[in-house]
Structures are given as structure tokens and as C-alpha cells.
């Protein structure tokens, strides 16, 4: 398990290249990459988080996924601070014996990250700055698990 909360950029390709491969146990790797969209005149984004709680919330979510889907490995990287359109915000990766487990675990992690990890996004655009509102559908997505 590898959990990283950081301001610096990360190299998605390099992380994918070294994740979950080579031990011959995993047959399936799924990764998710979240990017800042440039739509709607967005000029930048800032992500605030709750140091301490963030790390423990992510570790708890990852441990739950690892146990529930018997993952061979799990990775979460989430950035905070200022971000420009096109930049990577975060990634998750899961490795499992079969594809169903790898997909489900990655979606589970994303659903929980969206509404249970203490991050808050603020968007800066032509019309000023605005905190991103939580979506009902993100809360509803948790019911699946």
C-alpha cells in the first residue's frame, strides 16, 4: 500500500510503469487519473485539505479496499495546493488477480475519495472564485458499496 498526499506534481506514466507488476500474482491492474478540466473559463484550481486526517482517511479507505477485494497492491496519490487546467490532481491504482476486483476496488476508492476524504476544491475563473459544491450523485454513489 502506498498513500501520498503532496503539493508537488507526480508522474502518472512513471507511477503506472512501476505499479503492481512483476510479481506474477496480479492478472489485472486498473488505474484512474483525475485531471483539472479547462472548461468553463477555469483559469486555476486550489485544493485545500486537512493535514493528518487526510492521510489517515486515505489509509483507511485503501486498507478497506485491499481487504475486501484481496488486492495485490493499492496506490493513492492526491495533490493539494494550486493546480492549472490540464494538470493531474490525483490517481489511484489497484492490482488484483482478476479484472472485476481491480475495477470495483478502483471505483470504490474513487467514490470514497470524492465525498469522504477531507479535500475541498476552489475554482478560479473569469467570474471570480467559487468552492466546488458536493454533488448529490457523488453521495449517492456510496450506496453501491
Amino acid at each position, binding site marked *: 500500500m502506498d498513500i501520498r498526499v503532496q503539493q508537488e506534481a507526480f508522474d502518472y506514466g512513471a507511477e503506472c510503469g512501476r505499479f503492481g507488476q512483476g510479481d506474477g500474482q496480479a492478472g489485472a491492474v486498473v488505474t484512474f487519473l483525475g485531471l483539472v478540466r479547462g472548461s468553463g473559463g477555469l483559469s486555476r484550481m486550489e485544493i485545500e485539505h486537512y493535514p493528518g486526517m487526510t492521510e489517515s482517511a486515505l489509509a483507511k479507505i485503501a486498507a478497506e479496499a485491499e481487504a475486501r477485494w484481496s488486492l495485490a497492491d493499492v496506490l493513492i496519490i492526491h495533490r493539494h495546493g494550486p493546480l492549472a487546467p490540464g494538470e493531474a490532481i490525483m490517481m489511484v491504482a489497484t492490482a488484483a488477480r482478476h479484472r472485476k476486483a481491480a475495477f470495483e476496488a478502483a471505483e470504490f476508492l474513487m467514490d470514497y475519495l470524492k465525498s469522504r476524504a477531507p479535500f*475541498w476544491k476552489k475554482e478560479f475563473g473569469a467570474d471570480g472564485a467559487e468552492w466546488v459544491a458536493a454533488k448529490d450523485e457523488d453521495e449517492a454513489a456510496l450506496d453501491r458499496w
Partner: protein
Amino acid sequence: MIEVLYFAWVRERIGLPREKVATNAATVAELVEELRAREERYALAFSDLRALRVALDQRLSDFSAPLEGVREVAFFPPMTGG
């Protein structure tokens, strides 16, 4: 003394990220009442509890939870990670 933290627009409305609060509140809800009574900016930040979440010692909790033994209370809007 309890350490009280504010994040996102709660932090912006109150105007500070954290403060120490002397309180005898038994529950989170009672603490919120005390804070609301302080000043307009607190009343504004806590005007709609449905729009807020609370964590006690860095674990998500709720407004009816007891404060006994708690060292750190955080108030913030629904999270928007990912």
C-alpha cells in the same frame, strides 16, 4: 480547551483556520450554539448545519456526538476530493 479547525468556506467566513476554544459544551451541537452566539461571522458560517460536516479528532462524526475527551473539532463543507 478544544482546538477548533475550519476549512474551505467555513474558514473564509470565520476568517481564521483554527483557534483554541474554552468550552463546557457537552456535544458538538452545543459547541456550535456557543460559537454562533459569539459574532455575526460565526452565525453566518453555522447558519445551515445541513451544509456542514464535522470531524472529531480527525474522524467524521455528527453534531449530536459528545465532546468528552475530544481534543480537536473540525468544521467544513461536504468534501470534494478526487
